[in-house]
């Protein structure tokens, strides 16, 4: 057999590696939990909804037309400016941006878990992140008009890196708090 690089073999046949099927009843299991948590329960008010739909037809029309108008306007305004699509500025940087944005998104939801138990701590932690995020959004908004887009994108990524690091530290602190709590619980149990 001809020698082939392992990497290229896997890459060329990536689809074939996805050959497992999730269990057929998994969606039912998920849906049961969604019902318990009352997620996506629009169906329950379906009857009422249908009447509303007809009345709101005009509103819906407006809702589709107005954004289109805005999009058109936006396009008109920006068509002569440079594209702000990050991958057109630098594909490598775009990849980094998405990577960190994904990590942050996941870590933020992890952080949100403590909202109920530790509201004060959560407030403190999320306000730190919020500050960072505000300056990120500002950079992002400035990007289209930036004289040096690459530098701006780099600043955006640095911001995301710091956010990731910050979230890591916060999550670590939470872990330590939970650890201490657990130990205290065990101690009282032992006594």
């Amino acid at each position, binding site marked *: *057999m001809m*020698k*082939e*690089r*392992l*990497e290229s*073999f*896997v890459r060329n*046949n*990536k689809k*074939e*590696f*996805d*050959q*497992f*099927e*999730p*269990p057929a009843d*998994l*969606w039912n*299991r*998920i*849906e049961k*939990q*969604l019902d318990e*948590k009352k*997620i*996506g*329960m*629009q*169906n329950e008010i379906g009857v009422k909804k249908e009447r509303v739909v007809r009345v709101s037809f005009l509103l819906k029309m407006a809702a589709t037309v107005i954004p289109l108008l805005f999009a058109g306007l936006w396009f008109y305004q920006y068509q002569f400016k440079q594209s702000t699509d*990050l*991958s057109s500025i630098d*594909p490598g940087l*775009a*990849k980094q941006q*998405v*990577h960190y*944005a*994904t*990590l*942050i*998104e*996941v870590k*933020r*939801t992890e952080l*949100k878990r403590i909202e109920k138990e530790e509201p004060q701590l959560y407030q403190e932690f999320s306000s730190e992140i919020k500050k960072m995020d505000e300056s990120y959004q500002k950079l992002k908004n400035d990007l289209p008009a930036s004289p040096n887009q690459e530098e701006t994108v780099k600043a955006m990524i640095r911001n995301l890196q710091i956010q*990731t690091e910050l979230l890591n530290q916060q999550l670590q602190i939470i872990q330590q708090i939970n650890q201490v709590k657990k130990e205290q619980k065990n101690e009282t149990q032992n006594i």
Partner: protein
Amino acid sequence: MEAVYVDQHYGLVVECRNGSRKAYNDLYKLYSRAMFNIAMRILNDADEAADVLQEAFVDAFARIADFRQETTFGMWMKQIVINRSISQLRKRKMDLISIDETDVESIPDNEGPDTEELELQVRQVRAAIQELPDGYRVVLTLYLLEGYDHEEISHILRISENTSRTQFMRARRKLVEMLRNKGISYN
């Protein structure tokens, strides 16, 4: 990974926020297979992978209002599945000391006469990956199949970039050796 990060399913996420159960089901149908295979590659156990998938989807759906769409739903979901799979793997390691030893005899022979050569080869490579010890398998899978680079893996696994690199090199060497024993040669 491709450099296109436009979320094709942006609209579905918005519909989910508006409470459409159908949109949730659509997202599930779109992503469940790929996500299940990701969990399978990390965990090597269909029941555990199914549990992780269930938790991950419920979790993602419960938090979809917080999802700010700075990234795509698929990448977000993938990261959730990977995180959960890894913490499940870590949990398991505490009560199961060594997994690589138990796997030694269970090498599938792949003697079915029905398969084409390529399919057979994919199966053999996949089977060999599944035989790798957990630490090797996870790094190799993330790098080779999920398309992360070592910097990204270092964040995901909270190891150094260098560790990720050496782990991958060792895992790769071991895999190539295992495959050679089955008569498949790679560079």
